[in-house]
């Protein structure tokens, strides 16, 4: 499901926003009536996460965080908001006005109006933690088809309320809300345009949903109180068979192009930021499945946790600001999302 046309897109700018408040694992689980049966740091590598400012006026929420990331991306961009042809917002946790879960109108409309992107087509996409990758796939296709020239893909996730719920509601040592303790709040934004070159372009992106596993991770309101919650069957979601969905599909894709993982010569790989030990397992599996070395694996989850749909781009922005991703680097971004969504994004980054 990918195509290489004459017009290629590229990542022209990236921005992110992380709330300033830090909450450690110990601080999070202090006061739990039933402490989790698993040590968060041992199981996931996560030690702390950023949490929205609950005292801010107006309240910090997914929309306000998304706007901050979008403005940062625009500040770093050669474009102004008025130049954007499309805005796609990708939040799972569509919180605005504090804790109103908004289904209509789209976040993208509010973002468009706030930024002054008068010409932009706008809509939201939702695809769990693969949300921003979905937005990138869509805008990349719109650029390559000539429908648009440049667009903004943005997501804000005020998702730590599910951790607050887990702290209150976890009743068993191995509770389906354990994974909720790993999330952190963040926002990210990327601007794509139609000026891709050999050294600066989205090479290909593909996502697929294996819907047999669609009930393994459900996010909705709690039935125990005025809260939102996420219920995850971790064992069923995170195992070798699920991980092989990525490797099998990408291997088939590369075979069809007469290529191989080794021939792609990736400099870095970025997994969804849900667990460092799991990423190590996935990389070991991938080494076998692709019969190739896996490149340097970038992560930020120790300090930021699982930032949901924003995770890959929070990682990119973090390492780019440190100067650790030289221009011309080729990266592979790999989702792992409820649905279950698997896939890959290959891109070569220019001066971002």
């Amino acid at each position, binding site marked *: 499901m990918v195509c290489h046309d004459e017009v290629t897109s590229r990542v022209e700018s990236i921005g992110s926003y992380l709330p300033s408040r830090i909450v450690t694992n110990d601080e999070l689980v202090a006061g739990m009536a039933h402490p989790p049966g698993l040590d968060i740091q041992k199981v996931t590598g996560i030690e702390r996460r950023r949490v929205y400012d609950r005292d801010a006026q107006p309240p910090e929420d997914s929309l306000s965080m998304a706007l901050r990331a979008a403005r940062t991306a625009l500040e770093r961009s050669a474009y102004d908001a008025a130049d954007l042809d499309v805005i796609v917002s990708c939040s799972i946790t569509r919180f605005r006005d504090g804790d109103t879960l908004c289904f209509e109108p789209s976040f993208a409309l509010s973002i468009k109006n706030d930024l002054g992107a008068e010409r932009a087509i706008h809509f939201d996409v939702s*695809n769990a933690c693969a949300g921003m990758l979905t937005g990138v796939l869509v805008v990349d296709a719109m650029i390559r088809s000539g429908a648009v020239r440049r667009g903004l893909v943005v997501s804000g996730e005020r998702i730590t309320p599910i951790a607050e719920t887990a702290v209150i509601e976890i009743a068993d040592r191995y509770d389906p809300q354990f994974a909720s303790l790993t999330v952190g709040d963040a926002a990210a934004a990327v601007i794509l345009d139609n000026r891709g070159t050999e050294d600066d372009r989205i090479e290909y992106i593909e*996502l*697929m*949903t294996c819907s047999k596993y669609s009930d393994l991770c459900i*996010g909705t309101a709690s039935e125990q109180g*005025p809260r939102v919650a996420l219920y995850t069957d971790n064992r069923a979601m995170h195992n070798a068979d699920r991980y092989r969905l990525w490797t*099998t599909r990408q291997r088939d894709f590369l075979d069809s192009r007469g290529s191989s993982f080794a021939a792609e010569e990736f400099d870095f790989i970025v997994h969804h930021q849900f667990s460092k030990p799991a990423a190590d397992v996935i990389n070991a599996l991938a080494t076998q499945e692709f019969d190739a070395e896996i490149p340097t694996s970038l992560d930020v989850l120790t300090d930021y946790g699982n930032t949901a749909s924003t995770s890959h781009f929070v990682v990119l922005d973090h390492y780019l600001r440190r100067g650790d991703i030289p221009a011309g680097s080729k990266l592979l971004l790999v989702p792992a999302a409820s649905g279950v969504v698997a896939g890959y994004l290959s891109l070569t980054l220019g001066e971002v």
Partner: protein
Amino acid sequence: MGVVIASTATEPILASGIDAAAVAVREALDGAGLDPAQVHALINVGVYRDSNIVEPAVSALVSNKAGIGLEYFTGAVPTFSFDLMNGPCGFLNAVQVAASLLSTGSVANVVICSGDVHPSMTPQPHEVFPIAGIAAAVVLVQDDTDAGFGVLRTDSVTGPVETEGGVTISKAGTTGRASITVTRSIDGAASVALAASVARSAVESAQLDPAGVALIAGCPFEWFGAEVGDMLGAGGVVVPEHQGDPHTSSLQLAYQQAMKNERLVEYRDLVFVAGGGPTAAAITYRQKIGVRA
């Protein structure tokens, strides 16, 4: 090469919107002669959903029920699915996205499903829910004639916009999964003007005479379609024949009904128009000669 509607199906939502959407999807696939295992992309544009589920995408749950993209193994067709949400305009945004996916060769078919349900999934929810529960599914494919969709035109109000459909979690008690508040704050006349403006833009971009075009409009309120058609000078107006507002399924239902009743036979060109809120969207559609619903 254009993107055309291969088939359309609708299904009343009696309880679960996901179940109804899956039924509509299967019927649309049958109508297009497409096996569920051959679906390349599925986009859900429904806004209000069972139990206010925000994860996974509703499209994944619909896919599961419809038997689409259940598993991947070498040789299987991978299915790209996600939710696209933009109020009543979502279907037309999804058409544009589908056209991009189809024209770049990323996919060979796209299914767009829709439908809105009170999250409690009860026929008489405890709060006013101004939306009629109809699920719909449309199969889009590329066509090698000059039939197909034109260029999407959109417009929206400027300035801050308020939440029109949502649930304030802190006030929902233990009923967060079963509560939703839907309000319509926009001025009717203003939304008609916005919709007529984008409809005109769409028709002009296709170099069509409005008098020769049939307007397919949603039904955010009773007189929306008639007023937009009047302002545009459309040759005919088609709205869904259904009590209430089918919201994200409006255009699909109106089109399906009109095709079945042969109300569009004298029109080569249609213009689909969605609106009634802070955003309006319009796109022309040149009918494939000889197509019946």
